């Protein structure tokens, strides 16, 4: 590939954006209650894998969180069952916030790689140009 480094960084930008989307979704639904008859909201965890050779990174799969969730006693909740329990998703907020920062940092680092690679390729295009 001609402008390889930019393509490689591009694959990582995609992966980190998907990661960011998953985390945003998890945080938005962290307090979504569900009746005990069905599953709780299942958090999504992106699994990344390195491509063969030097082809960057891609999403190998999406792992879903625990369907059982946490049983919380809330008799006033309209979704509560006969004993007064509701299901909440099993999402660790601090862990998700940590992942959010890592995803953002990874995205920024790869955006910088694109910029530096562009500088390099532009300089290569100047070889032999008569002044």
């Amino acid at each position, binding site marked *: 590939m001609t402008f*390889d*480094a*930019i393509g*490689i*960084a591009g*694959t*990582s930008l995609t*992966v*980190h954006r998907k*990661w960011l989307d998953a985390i945003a979704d998890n945080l938005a639904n962290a307090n979504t209650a569900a009746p005990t008859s069905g599953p709780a909201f299942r958090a999504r965890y992106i*699994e*990344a*894998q*390195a491509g063969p050779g*030097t*082809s*960057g*990174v891609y999403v190998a799969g999406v792992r879903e969180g625990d369907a059982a969730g946490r049983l919380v006693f809330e008799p006033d909740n309209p979704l509560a069952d006969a004993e007064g329990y509701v299901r909440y998703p099993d999402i660790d907020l601090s862990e998700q916030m940590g992942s959010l920062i*890592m*995803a953002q*940092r*990874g995205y920024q*680092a*790869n955006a*910088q*790689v694109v910029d*530096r*690679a562009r*500088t*390099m390729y532009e*300089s*290569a295009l*100047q*070889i*032999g*140009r*008569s*002044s």
Partner: protein
Amino acid sequence: MLDSVTSAALTSALDGLSRRQRAIADNIANVNTPGYHAQRVQFEEALAASVQDGDGRATATTSLSAEPTRTNGNNVNLDTETMSNIDTVLRFQFATQALNAQFTGLRSALRTS
């Protein structure tokens, strides 16, 4: 004149630096991938030895870094990669400039007005 040791050395350096840039891009792309080990590209020593022998051509070799990993098996150090990236870009710019000077010198000698 155009195939001198210097020209060959500068061209080999450009090849090596370009491979290094790709390796760095791959490392930074996989900064959060579990189990990934950073790639390292070497060519400086081979190039210096080749210049000593009067040839000037050298191919770059890639290897995996054996630095300690984090808990998820990844051993990419973002600061090292960033520094290396900036260094590579600057070296590349210098090498293209030096290679350019070879051609420009010939051109100005040819100019007769």
